[in-house]
């Protein structure tokens, strides 16, 4: 299952021209507000008719302006989860969940009981949307979209309207969905934390253009994307395995780049986790440092250097096959003589776990992630 999208649309003062492929798994459309992300999924769902375009999902042509094909929304089977949930106020939660069933094609659909359990909304079934909290509403909206037996799910910033606690409440459910429901998911977001935690594929959109797309780890650790991602957000995403919880409160995680030490991770030994290493948290040294309080020192080779803004340079490193990013000053580059091919040591000040859920299996075929051996 692949979603293929090619769109051109002209608004007053804004040009959208995007083309990308979304393989199975979660594909994040990432970009600033106003970059055109929502327009893209509205076009996929049929809520907006672009000037020109071609959209195919699962082999079915949803839109082909050249051949005058334009399926109406109700025949596209794109399960849309709106930012503002849009639950039907006159129906109970149960009736909301089953709404799409009336119109779904005959044949086996998703198992209602399982989805209800997966989303933890069993106790809410008899209630009405007006009595639910924001997080509960969003879970019901997700369940409603899945139970309409769609070809793919489209989520438009489903967490943007929620506070941090509610976000933390929903994210694990989204992870479970990604891992257990075999549906491709298009996920619009401008929050990097959600992308690193959920996405297998990232499509970076800036001012109506796709500036990068590919497996999440690859896109995030490519210094050319640093500006689009926001310079503060530039960094590497790798998969590591918990190998030990040590007596002094640290957990040891192994990845291809070497051992990582983190404050006690709330996951059993053997768990595979996504960890995020921000470029601004990585120092470079030309010799193995001694007498240093930092615990994680990884040997690496410089692959590429890219000036970003003002005095900063992003250095892309190869550490045992993993890609790391370091943010250093131009002056340091000159003083240390940093050039591609040079052997250095990366000193990690901080590593964060991007994803607390268990990554027990490759998330999706075809989205090869470095470190997902």
């Amino acid at each position: 299952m692949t979603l293929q999208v090619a769109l051109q649309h002209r608004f007053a003062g804004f040009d959208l021209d995007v083309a990308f492929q979304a393989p199975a798994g979660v594909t994040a459309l990432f970009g600033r507000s106003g970059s055109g992300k929502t327009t893209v999924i509205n076009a996929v769902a049929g809520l907006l008719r672009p000037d020109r375009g071609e959209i195919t999902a699962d082999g079915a042509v949803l839109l082909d302006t050249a051949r005058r094909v334009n399926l109406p929304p109700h025949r596209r089977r794109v399960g849309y989860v709106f930012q503002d949930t849009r639950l039907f106020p006159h129906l109970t939660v149960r009736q909301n969940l089953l709404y799409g069933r009336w119109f779904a094609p005959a044949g086996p659909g998703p198992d209602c009981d399982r989805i209800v359990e997966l989303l933890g909304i069993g106790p809410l079934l008899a209630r009405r949307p007006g009595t639910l909290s924001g997080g509960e509403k969003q879970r019901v909206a997700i369940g409603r979209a899945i139970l309409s037996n769609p070809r793919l799910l489209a989520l438009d910033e489903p967490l943007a309207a929620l506070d941090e606690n509610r976000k933390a409440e929903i994210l694990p459910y989204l992870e479970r969905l990604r891992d257990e429901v075999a549906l491709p998911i298009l996920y619009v977001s401008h929050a990097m934390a959600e992308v690193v935690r959920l996405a297998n594929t990232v499509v970076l959109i800036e001012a109506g253009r796709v500036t990068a797309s590919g497996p999440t780890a690859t896109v995030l650790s490519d210094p050319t994307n640093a500006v689009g991602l926001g310079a503060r957000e530039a960094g590497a995403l790798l998969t590591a395995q918990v190998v030990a919880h040590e007596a002094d409160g640290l957990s040891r995680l192994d990845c291809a780049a070497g051992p990582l030490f983190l404050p006690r991770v709330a996951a059993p030994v053997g768990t595979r986790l996504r960890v995020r290493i921000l470029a601004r948290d990585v120092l470079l040294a030309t010799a193995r440092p001694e007498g240093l309080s930092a615990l994680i020192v990884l040997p690496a080779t410089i692959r590429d250097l890219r000036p970003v803004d003002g005095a900063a340079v992003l250095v892309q490193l190869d550490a045992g096959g993993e890609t790391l990013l370091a943010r250093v000053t131009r002056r340091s580059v000159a003083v240390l003589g940093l050039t591609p091919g040079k052997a250095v040591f990366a000193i990690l000040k901080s590593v964060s776990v991007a994803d607390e859920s268990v990554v027990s299996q490759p998330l999706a075929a075809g989205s090869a992630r470095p470190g997902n051996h």
Partner: protein
Amino acid sequence: MTDWLTPDEWRAVALSLRVSFWATLVSLPLGVFVAYALARWTFWGKQLLNGLVHLPLILPPVVTGYLLLVTFGRRGVVGQTLDEWFGIVLAFRWTGAALAAGVMAFPLMVRAIRLAIEAVDPKLEQAAGTLGASKPWVFVTVTLPLILPGIIAGAILAFAKAMGEFGATITFVSNIPGQTQTLPSAIYAVLQVPGGEGNAARLVWIAILIAMTALLVSEWVARAVARRISGQ
């Protein structure tokens, strides 16, 4: 217990109820359709339709009655066709009174329903579409339940207006006891007789009673429905 009203007076009350009931029931689907068109569609002649719907509200009722007479009378353009093709005669019949009452009440009904439709968030209808519902199904499963309080309010308002309609009715179908004499026409007829105020009072009380009952029932139903669909 029926002897405190004359048989003609009883017939006037019964006729008024029948006329108002049918006027409301028959115009309701058209009212919902016109209200939806005015609230949601853009089409050529929309302002013209809007004006036409509201015309009976601002015209002198006797003018509306005259227009009905020349259109739906025996020799009227539409009246003649209805008579020849379907054997339907409206002039000087209770059905004509229902038509007059329906036309006069139509603007009030459409206004109430239109306001309800405009209050429905089109985003909900869009969401129903993405869940697989075609346009007609979206209307039946989402729009209609949400505008139900407006429809009820519009229907009751129209019923009350039809109960009170006088000018257009008397112009179009006259004031024939037992046939086209509605409650207001009967009150008018009684008042034409010197010293008839006492007799009129009984009919006036009945008119007030029916109007108040209609209002209270509509309030009660609308509140119950609003509670149901507010999502609480």
